[in-house]
């Protein structure tokens, strides 16, 4: 508030000082009364309802504050009690039993019961944005007042991920909210530490959260109020941080140097793979893409190091893999599997019967970091081996998704947020898969996914199975991974607890006032 004193008269200054003193007294009397955390996000949520919430940052910040997940993924990646205090697969891995926290309540004051959780999970399985998490769940039932059992049609070790704060399926909405789903666009009914203040919230401008009076652990409610401001302009974010209007902001690699120069702290961790997804593996639109040698040629033709150095700097790393170091499935031996080698790429094209190259159209997915520039660099690299690519930009997911649904385009750029290797396999190369818009079937990929599903993700056997999938996906490419990018947070020194890893994504419920 330093800017006030330069404008106002001495009398007004006295009045302001009196007000400030009064405010200071109030703060002293109630240490937490003015504790507001203001966060800047570059985009608003599609809605506040976790049923339709997107994942990744910043989308998960909005539901994370208000909806306690059944399983809480700690910053170190371990699964810990959330609304469920413990959970277990049966010996045959065909059922998953969760025991719920006794005494937990939704923000409307009603208790969290097995019936409420069952109603939510059934709702999410039918209407959720990531309903694939529950695709193998054949039955959901209350097996006690505080016990829920999921029956599985086939083993699925991903449930603890689908039910954590990044998966969305575990963000239980209370019965009152479920009875009026339209209201969930502007109000909340979760059992998380905060709840939305609809009166102070302005769609796509600021989202104001206040304490949930029924939250089971008040010691984790670090702030009286949390405000998420939507600031799309990088300059405005930096100015807001520098002037103290915002304490934490979603950062961008292109702004990192300026943020450092401004005295801000930077937190980062590998967060996503950016590259190209080839949907037309069967060659229905572009016959050349059916040949694996052609897809390998497309990988060899890319100067990843050059692209990373010019577009992503130290917060990007060239990659031809689908998970980063530290996630099960990553293999050092696969690093630089496709070195920049246009000659080899041309030879592979010739071997596949395309010595003069071929043409195809590449759809640009919105919201890929520096995506337009990356796409142009790819076009230039591929042109060098005779492959002519026409770019088709899209401005929003509301345009992009139906465009891909037309099945007229063989490939698209993409951002793929990291979690575990099985997510990559199941969402990219199996049938069905989230990205498999052309409906191709790769039996080897399906078998490798099945093998992974039979093991616990973190077990040695699970990691070995993940490595097998990763190896297959790299050696028999259906994608052209280009860069592994970091997620960044810029913050003032007033906030602690911001360290995060690849997964879970940064979570504002962990952020607390610095001592």
């Amino acid at each position, binding site marked *: 508030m330093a800017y006030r004193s330069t404008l106002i008269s001495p009398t007004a200054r006295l009045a302001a000082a009196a007000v400030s003193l009064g405010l200071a007294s109030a703060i002293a009397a109630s240490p937490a009364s003015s504790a507001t955390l203001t966060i800047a996000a570059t985009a608003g949520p599609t809605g506040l309802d976790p049923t339709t919430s997107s994942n990744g940052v910043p989308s998960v910040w909005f539901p994370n504050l208000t909806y306690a997940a059944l399983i809480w993924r700690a910053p170190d990646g371990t699964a810990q009690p959330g609304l469920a205090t413990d959970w277990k697969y049966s010996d045959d891995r065909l059922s998953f039993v969760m025991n719920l926290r006794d005494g937990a309540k939704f923000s409307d004051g009603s208790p969290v019961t097995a019936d409420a959780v069952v109603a939510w999970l059934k709702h999410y399985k039918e209407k959720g944005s990531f309903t694939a998490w529950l695709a193998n769940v054949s039955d959901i039932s209350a097996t006690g007042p505080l016990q829920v059992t999921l029956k599985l049609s086939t083993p699925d070790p991903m449930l603890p991920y689908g039910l954590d704060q990044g998966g969305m399926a575990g963000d239980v909405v209370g019965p009152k909210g479920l009875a009026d789903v339209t209201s969930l666009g502007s109000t909340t009914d979760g059992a998380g530490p905060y709840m939305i203040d609809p009166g102070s919230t302005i*769609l796509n401008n600021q989202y104001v959260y206040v304490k949930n009076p029924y939250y089971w652990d008040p010691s984790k409610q670090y702030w009286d109020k949390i405000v998420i401001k939507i600031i799309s*302009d990088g300059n405005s974010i930096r100015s807001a941080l520098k002037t103290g209007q915002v304490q934490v902001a979603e950062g961008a690699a292109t702004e990192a140097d300026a943020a450092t120069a401004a005295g801000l702290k930077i937190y980062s961790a590998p967060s996503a793979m950016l590259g190209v997804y080839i949907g037309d593996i069967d060659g229905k639109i572009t016959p050349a893409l059916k040949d694996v040698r052609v897809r390998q040629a497309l990988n060899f033709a890319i100067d990843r190091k050059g692209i990373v150095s010019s577009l992503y700097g130290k917060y990007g790393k060239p990659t031809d893999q689908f998970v980063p170091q530290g996630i099960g499935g990553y293999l050092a031996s696969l690093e630089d599997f496709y070195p920049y080698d246009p000659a080899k790429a041309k030879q592979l094209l010739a071997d596949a019967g395309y010595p003069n190259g071929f043409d195809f159209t590449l759809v640009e997915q919105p919201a890929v970091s520096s995506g337009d520039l990356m796409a142009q660099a790819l076009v230039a690299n591929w042109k060098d081996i005779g492959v002519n690519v026409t770019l088709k930009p899209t401005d*929003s997911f509301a345009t992009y998704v*139906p465009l891909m649904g037309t099945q007229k385009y063989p490939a698209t750029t993409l951002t793929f947020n990291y979690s575990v290797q099985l997510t990559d396999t199941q969402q990219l190369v199996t049938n069905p898969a989230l990205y498999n818009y052309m409906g191709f079937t790769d039996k080897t990929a399906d078998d490798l996914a099945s093998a992974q599903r039979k093991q616990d993700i973190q077990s040695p056997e699970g990691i070995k199975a993940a490595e097998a999938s990763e190896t297959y996906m790299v050696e028999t490419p259906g994608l052209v991974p280009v860069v592994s990018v970091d997620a960044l947070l810029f913050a003032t020194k007033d906030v602690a607890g911001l360290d995060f890893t690849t997964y879970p994504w940064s979570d504002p419920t962990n952020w607390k006032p610095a001592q």
Partner: protein
Amino acid sequence: MKLFRSLAARIVGSLVLLLVVPTITYFIQGVSPSNVAKGVFGLDATDAMIADFNHRLGLDQPLIIRYLQWLAHAVTGNFGISYINGQSVQQVLAPRLSVSLSLIIGAFIVFTIAGIIIGVLSATRGRIVGRIFDVISTIGIAVPNFWLAVILVAFFAVALPIFPATGYVFFSDSPYFYFLSLVLPVVALAFAGITAVAKQTRDQMLLAIQSPWARTLRANGASEFSIVYKHALRNAAAPVITVMGTIFVGSLSGSVVVENIFVLPGLGSQSLASALQADLPVVQGIAVYFTIIVVVVNVIIDIATTILNPKVREP
């Protein structure tokens, strides 16, 4: 009599505009390739989910039916509900209207007062001053408001922490901080307008001051002050007001950029966000609000220019 006939014709024309603009907007949005259901549910959306969503919001109806339903509700002031958060469009836009009006009316006041003062001074204070204002005018028109906004923030919010870098304070919360939060956005939005109004004022004033009737007044012993501020300014006013109206309407589009940079919760920033989310009812509501603003401003300009034009005032 002529004044009232002219106004009546303008108001009837405005009503037509109020129907035509939202209609065109509706059909352009209706045929755009965006699909709000797929935007909301993403790549994982099943046909059943999309069908349920579309049915709930009436999007499974033919476009013409949806339009007629929208129109029937719109004439009663009901613009539907936001596809994104389920609130009524009026609820979404009500707080934003006051923000946008504060911004563009603030900019209007600034570019009017500053532009006219600068224009009159440059017309009456000799060649060198006039040339300086010419150069400043050219720069002012050339400087984009987003660039100016960034510079203003760098100087007056970051280097000299006088004004807030971003954000908006509602008048009801604090009149003082309300004005403070508007200063930089208003200046950024008004700057090009100041120079345009100044240039128009200067040119019109020079024409008036050098006109035969001004020479006659001087020959009859009228003071220079009276000629400039009583007679010339009034004669120059009509074209200046027309330019001011054009700038005011143009500032609606300028506000989209300025609101985004200063993170103001106005109609402009909402229009951009809603268009990207394919939240068509909100976009449509904003189109109606903007059309009403344009219509009202045009009517006011017509009244002002009619009053200032003696030929129109004659019976």
